[in-house]
């Protein structure tokens, strides 16, 4: 009841209806869990990128045979791994790499997915039908397997190649969501009006429809960021993500496939596991709050 009252009064305060982005921001601030998550995320990002800027990456990935498997101590805050490398340093760099690849893949797959979805939804009919069958096919394939196979047959394996392969098999969810929204949007008056005025389809799609569904796009990309971070660390865990010289959070976890490490040397893999969980939960909290904001029925304030 109190919620409703607050809702009413806040709506009366703002005479003109608030823009989509403003609603997103307001919902985010109202939801304490999401706000704390967002602050935590920003702190982690600033800390990780800041520290890795100062830290010498070469020094950290250098093998030191005199310091193998050392437990946490004064010198090594989180101990060392089987190559005598500082786990804390690897955790920082790993988090940075995982976050970076998460951002890159989310952005790239977002671009492909949004374009694909907008075109399918906007034109409808046969174009939509053909595009959706292609999408169905991609979506039913076992994602992890194809990425692994492609990663293993690419000759010059780089981070760029990895993100491109990853993107090629992860744009479908976004495309499907955007398409269903675009289908609704194209029936609205402003699109019809624009058409009558002779605006080109390209312009209507990207200058008019896309800004109108921007809040949905932001929400989808945020939720995708969380799952991409998880998938990347999963692939690195299996050994098909980054090469070992560029550690990711998954690389640290993959040391735990050695039973000795899993059982007795928790400092190598537990921090990375906790870090992945914290990142995924925090991004998801923010994403869920944003999602509630886009759906007026679920809005909290």
């Amino acid at each position, binding site marked *: 009841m109190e919620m409703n009252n607050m809702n009413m009064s806040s709506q009366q305060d703002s005479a003109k209806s608030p823009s989509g982005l403003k609603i997103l921001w307001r919902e985010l601030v109202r939801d304490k869990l999401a706000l704390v998550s967002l602050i935590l995320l920003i702190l982690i990002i600033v800390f990780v990128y800041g520290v890795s800027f100062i830290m010498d990456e070469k020094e950290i990935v250098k093998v030191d045979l005199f310091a193998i498997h050392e437990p946490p101590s004064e010198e090594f805050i989180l101990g060392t791994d089987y190559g005598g490398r500082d786990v804390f340093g690897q955790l920082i760099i790993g988090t940075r790499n995982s976050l970076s690849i998460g951002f890159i893949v989310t952005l790239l797959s977002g671009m492909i997915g949004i374009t694909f979805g907008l075109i399918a939804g906007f034109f409808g009919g046969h174009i939509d039908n053909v595009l959706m*069958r292609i999408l*169905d*096919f991609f979506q*039913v*394939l*076992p*994602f*992890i*397997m*194809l990425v*692994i*196979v*492609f990663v*293993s*047959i690419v000759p010059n394996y780089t981070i760029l190649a990895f993100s491109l392969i990853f993107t090629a098999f992860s744009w479908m969810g976004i495309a499907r969501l955007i398409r269903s929204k675009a289908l609704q949007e194209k029936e609205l008056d402003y699109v019809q009006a624009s058409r009558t005025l002779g605006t080109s389809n390209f312009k209507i799609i990207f200058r008019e429809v896309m800004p109108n569904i921007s809040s949905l796009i932001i929400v989808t990309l945020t939720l995708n960021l*969380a799952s991409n971070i*998880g*998938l990347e*660390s*999963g692939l690195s*865990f*299996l*050994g*098909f993500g980054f090469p070992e010289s560029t550690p990711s959070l998954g690389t640290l*976890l993959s040391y*735990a*496939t050695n*039973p000795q490490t*899993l*059982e007795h040397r928790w400092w190598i*893999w537990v921090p990375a*596991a906790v870090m*992945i*969980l914290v990142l*995924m*939960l925090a991004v*998801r909290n923010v994403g869920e709050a944003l999602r509630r904001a886009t759906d007026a029925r679920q809005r909290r304030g």
Partner: protein
Amino acid sequence: MWKFIVRRLIITFPQLIVLSIIIFLMAQAMPGDALTGLVDPNIDRAAIEEQREKLGLNDPWHIKYVDWISGIFQGDLGQSFRYKMEVTELVEQRMINTFWLSVATLIFTYIIAVPLGIISGRYNDTLLDSSITGYTYIGFATPLFIFALVMLWIFGYQLQWFPTGGSVAPGTEPGTIDYVMSKINHLLLPALSIALIQTVSTVQYLRSEIVDTKQRDFVITARAKGASESRVYNRHILRNSLLPIAAFFGYEITMLITGTIFVEQIFSFPGMGQLFIESVLQRDFSVVNAVVLLFGAAAILGALISDIILSVVDPRIRIK
């Protein structure tokens, strides 16, 4: 309804064909072919070349593709470079293990999902419901491989309730009760790890479905007739909510495949997923292709089964 099934089948065949072409092209991009690793390096180059010509390894790609496809229909998936045996034979052993792992996982998934979903939907917005929702929220964000590692660490190493690897205790005779029990014992922890994570989306779906159905007119009618609360739930609401869940099992196959790849690796369980990772690492590409083909076909057929069951259960889908 038949119209829908036929139309759905018409979509499935191109999917299978495109899948096979993708895998074939992947195989072409991989280093080595059917002869590499089989021939003695001392044999004359010209003789090898002659042999290649005879085996059709120098043909254009579409002829090779037809050869390859017809081989598959005769059950010929090629030779494993590492194990020096027929891929068909190798895959068969592993497939049985993965099959039972999947069955156990599916059973656990539904055993967990149905009661939790029903409780959560029936008593929504209670403490019990919020704890179940909390579990699904966290479960959704937890990557499977981390969860499986933690399960292995806690129940395998710390508490030692379950074996930590393999699919059967060494030294047990096949066919005895001990053998079966040991197999089941080795299955439990990996299956439970996948199920506890995979089940969360089903729980969420069942919950929202029940919460939705609860307010429908026919439920109110049933209550007005004087049907007891348990009858309303068991006879009226569940019949409407459970069927879509049952139909989802085909879609779960794609998730199961991802699950088995990670979990078999973590629990060193000798199944298809582990075979796949091993073969990729060892560059044993004929095995890789066979596994991708089988898993891909399984995923496509799973989606087909689910769509058909759903169309039977929910007539609204057929209209499109």
